C-alpha cells in the first residue's frame, strides 16, 4: 500500500545547515572548542529530527472513511483514521494531504488538495481527524493517494509517505422535489395503459439470480445447465414483475459557448432527471429505461430498484452536455426498445418540438414509433414552466 517514501530538507533545514557550516568552519579553522560543542548541539538535533521523521511514519496507516453517497452541495465529512501499530513511540504532528480529483474535469479545473493534521497518535492506538466542505459539482471524485508527512519535532526535515489508497465517491446530482402537478401528468399518461398490462409475463423482469426449484415454478424458468451441473433443478429468479414501463430521455444540449443560464439549465435538467428516477425507483414495480444524450450517449435499463437507481445516479453524475443534437437518434433508439404501453418523458435543455418531422425523421418514418410519439411528454427545462413540476432546494 505504501508507495513513495523520501526525506527532504525543508527551507528552514537549509538555513540551519548554512549556519551549521559556518560554525563548523569556524571551529576547524580557529580551533575553537566551544564551537565544536555548538556543532554537536546543532548536528545532534538535525540527526534527531532525521531519526524521528524516519521512525514516526513507520507502521502508520491512514484510512479514509467516505460517506455512503452524497448529492452535489451536501455537506461532505471525510474521516481519516490513523493507526499507530508501533508498540512504543507516539507519532506527532502528522500532516495528511488528500488530493481530490474529479473525473473528466475540464482544463480550468485544478486538482484540490485538502490538508489536515493528526496532532498525536499514541503508540498502539488510533486517532481520528476529519475534513469537511461541500462538493458543488456532481461527478465521480477520486480521493487519494494520501500523502502523509511529518517534520516533527524541529521542522528541518520532512519525510513523506504516499499511501496508495484511493477511493471514489460518486457525487450524485442534486435531488429536488417533484410537485403534485408532475404526479398528475404521469398519472394521466398512464390512463389506458392498465388494460394492456401483461398478466402472464414470464420473462418480464431482470434476471436476479438462481435458486432451487420450488413447487409451482414454471418449467421455462429452469436453468438447465446449472441443473445439470448440480444434479438438482435450479431455476432462474427474476425481479418482481413490472406493471409499468417508463423511459426517461435526457437531452443535454448546450451551445459551444454557453451562457451561465444554459449551464444552469444543464444542471437543472440532470437534477430533474435524477429526482424522477429516484422517485420511480422508490415506488418500484416498473421497468425503467434512462437514456442520456450528451457528450456521449448512455443508457441504463432495468427494473426500478435501488441497484438501478445507483447505476443511474452514477451515470448522471458523469454526464456532460454537448452542442451536438443527439436527441433524434436517442429517441429513435429508445422507442425502438420501449413497449407501446411505456411512458416516455423527454427532459431537454432547450425548446423541443417533437412534431418536427424533419428533425425526428427516423421516428416519424417508423409506423410503430409514430404511434408511440403521441405518448411522449417533452419538458423544456429552459422554460419557466418547469417550476410547476420540479423545484430544487
Amino acid at each position, binding site marked *: 500500500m505504501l508507495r513513495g517514501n523520501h526525506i527532504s530538507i525543508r527551507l528552514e533545514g537549509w538555513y540551519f545547515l548554512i549556519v551549521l557550516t559556518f560554525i563548523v568552519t569556524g571551529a576547524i579553522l580557529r580551533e575553537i572548542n566551544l564551537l565544536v560543542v555548538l556543532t554537536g548541539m546543532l548536528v545532534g538535533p538535525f540527526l534527531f529530527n532525521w531519526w524521528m521523521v524516519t521512525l514516526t511514519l513507520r507502521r502508520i496507516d491512514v484510512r479514509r472513511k467516505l460517506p455512503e453517497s452524497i448529492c452535489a452541495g451536501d455537506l461532505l465529512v471525510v474521516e481519516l483514521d490513523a493507526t499507530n501499530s508501533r508498540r512504543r513511540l507516539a507519532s506527532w504532528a502528522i500532516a495528511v494531504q488528500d488530493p481530490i480529483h474529479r473525473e473528466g474535469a475540464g482544463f480550468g479545473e485544478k486538482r484540490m488538495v485538502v490538508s489536515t493534521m493528526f496532532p498525536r497518535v499514541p503508540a498502539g492506538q488510533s486517532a481520528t481527524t476529519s*475534513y469537511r466542505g461541500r462538493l458543488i459539482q456532481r461527478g465521480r471524485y477520486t480521493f487519494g493517494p494520501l500523502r502523509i508527512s511529518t517534520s516533527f519535532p524541529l521542522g528541518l526535515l520532512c519525510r513523506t509517505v504516499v499511501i496508495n489508497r484511493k477511493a*471514489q465517491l460518486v457525487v450524485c446530482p442534486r435531488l429536488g422535489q417533484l410537485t403534485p402537478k408532475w404526479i398528475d401528468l404521469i398519472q394521466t399518461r398512464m390512463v389506458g395503459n392498465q388494460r394492456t398490462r401483461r398478466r402472464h409475463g414470464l420473462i418480464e423482469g431482470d434476471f436476479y439470480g438462481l435458486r432451487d426449484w420450488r413447487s409451482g415454478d414454471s418449467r421455462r424458468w429452469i436453468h438447465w445447465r446449472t441443473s445439470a451441473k448440480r444434479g438438482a433443478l435450479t431455476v432462474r429468479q427474476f425481479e418482481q414483475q413490472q406493471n409499468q414501463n417508463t423511459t426517461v430521455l435526457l437531452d443535454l444540449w448546450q451551445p459551444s459557448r454557453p451562457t451561465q443560464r444554459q449551464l444552469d439549465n444543464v444542471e437543472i435538467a440532470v437534477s430533474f432527471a435524477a429526482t424522477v428516477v429516484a422517485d420511480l425507483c422508490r415506488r418500484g414495480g416498473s421497468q425503467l429505461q434512462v437514456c442520456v444524450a450528451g457528450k456521449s450517449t448512455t443508457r441504463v435499463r432495468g427494473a426500478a430498484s435501488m441497484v438501478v437507481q445507483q447505476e443511474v445516479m452514477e451515470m448522471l453524475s458523469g454526464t456532460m452536455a454537448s452542442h451536438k443534437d443527439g436527441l433524434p437518434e436517442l429517441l429513435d433508439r429508445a422507442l425502438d426498445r420501449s413497449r407501446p404501453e411505456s411512458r416516455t418523458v423527454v427532459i431537454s435543455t432547450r425548446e423541443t418540438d417533437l412534431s418536427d418531422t424533419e428533425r425526428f425523421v427516423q421516428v416519424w418514418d417508423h409506423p410503430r414509433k409514430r404511434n408511440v410519439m403521441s405518448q411522449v411528454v417533452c419538458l423544456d427545462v429552459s422554460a419557466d414552466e418547469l417550476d410547476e413540476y420540479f423545484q430544487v432546494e
Partner: protein
Amino acid sequence: MNVERLLQINIATLAALGTLLLGMGQRSVLLPVLSIVAAVTSVCVTDSLGKFQLNRTVANLAALLAVVLSGRELFHGDSEYQLLAVANLLVYLQVILLFQQKNHRLYWQLIMLSLLQVVVASALNLGVEFGVLLVLYMFTALAALCLFFVHREMEQCGSATRVESIFHFRRSAEPFGRERPQRWPLPTADPLRSSGTYKELSHAVLGWNLVRYVLSMGCTTLIFTVILFFAMPRFGNTVWQGAGGEHQPMVGFTQEVALNEMKKLLESPELVMRVNFGEVKTGIPYKLFGTPYWRGTVLWDYAYEGREGKWSQSKLPAWQDDHRLAAPPSHQELVQQDIALEPTQDVLLFSAFPVYADRDAPNQIRFEPRSRKLFRPVENRTGRYGQFRYRTLTTAFARGRQKPIVPHANRLTHRGAQARLDQEKETLLQFDSELHRDLGDLAANILQENNLSQEDVFGRARALESHFINSGLYSYSLDFDLVGQQRDRGLDPIIDFVMNHRTGHCEYFASALTMALRSQGIPARMAVGYKGGEYNVVGDYYQVRQLHAHAWVEAYLEPHEIPPGYLSRNESSPGGAWLRLDPTPGDPNNLADVEDAGLIHHLHQVIDYTQLIWNEYVLGLNSERQKKAIYHPVATRTHGAIKALFDRRWWATLFANLRSGEWFNWQAGLATILFLLVFVGSYRLVSPPIRRVFAWLRDRRSPAKYRARRRVDFYSRLETILKCHGMRRAVGQTPREFAISVGGRMADRPTRRYASSLPRRIVDAFYRVRYGGATLDRQEAQDVENTLHQLKDALSK
C-alpha cells in the same frame, strides 16, 4: 495557554539567554539586562496585549540605524573589537524584532539571531558557567524550535486549511463580468477544510508528553554532543584561548619558579604519584605523623627581569653526569619509600631527603649531586615518559615525623669538599641589597624585635619563618584577581608581596623568606616539590596530586649551629645541615581542611574542579590530549577486547568467573556490543538485496499459467472478501450471476447501497482478463484495487 503564546514566551527566553551568554563573554551587564527587559516587555506589551507593535517601516529604519552604528565600530578596531561590534548588532536587531508583530518569518529570524549570538559568545567565553548556560540554552532552543514547528503546522492545517485550488465547475466557463443569475441554488464555492481548529489542535499537542519529548531530545543531543566533541579529530596542538588569548593558569610542579601571576590559579587534581612508606626490615607500613615533604629540586638563583621574578639553577651547566645513589648509612632509622610515579614529561623524580639507594636495586635511579636532583635512568631525557615505580631509602624520618634538620650531603670526606661547600654557601647568600633593601630592613627589624643573638642562626631563621606564619599580616591565596588593585607591577614581585599586597601562595612566601634569610647572612635556598597528599587508609599510601605542589625554604646551618636533639644519635653532620622552613601559612582552601569547611567551601571546591575539567578537556582539548585521553585508551581497550575473543585462556577465565559469580567483564561486554553491532549492521545491509534476488528467482521459476492466474487474483480476493461477510458463490453460479446477486443483497441495506454496483465492476474486469484475454493496464489494475478496498470498507459498515 495555546502553542503560540508558549512559543512567544520561549522565544523571548531564548533571546534573553543568548544575550546573557554574550554579555558573559563581554563581561557586560548592560546587554543582558537590556535584553531581558526587552524580552519581558515584548511578551507582555507586544504579544499578549498587542498595544505596542513596530510597523515594518519603522522596524526596517531602526535595523538600518543599528547596522550603521555597529558598522562604525566594526571597521575601527581589532578583531576582538569587531567581534563585540557584531555581538552588539545582533542584540540590537533582536530587540527590534521582539517588538514587531510576530509571524513565521520573524519567529525564525529571532531563533537564528539568538543562535548567532551564541556563536559569537563561544569565541568570547572561557568559563565553565558558559557551558552550564549553554546546556540550558540548548534545551530552550529545542523547545522553541519544536513549538515553532507545531505552531506553523497547526496554522497551516488548522484554522486555514491549504487548498491549492478551489474546485468549482463553473469558473472556467463563466463569461467575464457577467452576473450569474440565481437559477441554480447551490453556492459557487465552499472549500474543504480540516475540522480541527487551532485551539483544539493546540490542546491536543500541549502537555507533559511534549515536555518529556523535548527533554529526551535534549538529553540525546547532549550525549551526542559529548561523543562528537571528544571523537571529532583535532588537527593542531594549539587551541583557542579566548578573544584575549588568555588561559587560566594552574597549580603544579615546575623546575623553575616564576613570580608573575595576575590571575586566579586553579588547583589541578592530576595525579602525580602514590607513595608508600615502609619499614626497611619488616616492610610493614611506616606510621607517619605530620605532613611529609617530597623534594624535586632546589633553586638558588633569583633574577628579576621584565617584571618577573624567577628562581632557577641557572649557574649550573645544562647537563651534568649523573651518579649512583649512595648506600644507606648503618645504625640509623631507615624508611623505605615506594613511589609509583604517573606518566610525566620529565625525568625528574621526587623523594624525601636525604635519599639513599635501595639495597636490592642500587642502580634503579640516578642522582646529580650539584643540582641535587633524582632522575630516572633513560637515555633520552626529552619527550614523555610512562609510569615509573622506584624505591629509595631515607633517614628523613624519626619516630614517625619528618625531621626539620637533615645533614648536608657533603661530608667533607675528600679534598676540595670544603671549597665546594664554601662556594655553595656563597651562592646561597646572593642578595641584591638595592632591589631587596626593604625586605632586608624588614628582616633586620624582625630579628631586632625578637632580640636574638647573631650566633643563634637556628632561632633567627625560625623567627623569620614565624613572621610570615604568625604575624597575621600575610594571607594565603591562589586568586590574584583579588589583589589586583593593591599590586605594583613596577616593583620586584617579592618586595611587592612583602610591602604591598601580602597575599600569595607558597612560592611568594618561600621567596620572601629565602631573601630575608640571605639578607641576614643565613645561606638559604628554595626547595620545590610536593607536600602532603591524601592518605589512603585502605592502601596505606599517600596520593599526591599536582595541587599538592609546594615550595619551601632550606637554610644552611653550620655544624655548630645545629641545636642539640635535632639529629639522631648516630647521625653526624660534618658538612653542616639543612633546616627546613615552611613560611606558608595555612591554606584556607587546602583539601586537608575540607572536613572542617562548610557546604559553601565544598561547593567552591566542586566549582573549581569543574572549571579545571572544563579547561583541560573542553577548552584545551587539542590533538595530543585527545590522542592521550581518548583515542589511545579506546584503541587499546578495543584491541584488547578483540584479542581476547580469540584467546582460549581468556574464555576459560571468563567462564570460570561466571561460575564463581563474577558476571561482569568489560571486555566481554565490549566484545558483545561490537559483535551485535556488526551482526545487525551486516543483516540490514545484506537482507534487502537477498530478498529481492529471491523474489526475482521465484518469479522466474513460476510457470506462465501461474503468472497468468496471479493476474486475476483480484477475483479470488473478491470472493474472499464476500465470503468473510457470509456471501458465498453457490455451486454452478457464474461469477457474473454471483456479482448480480451480491449487488442486490447489498442494495437491500441502505448503508451498503452505494456500493452495490462494485462487485459487478470487478467481475466485468475479471471476465475481460479471464475469458477475453485482455491485460489490465496499470491504471485499470489500480482501479480494481481501489474498488476492492471500497467494497471492503462498505461491507465493514
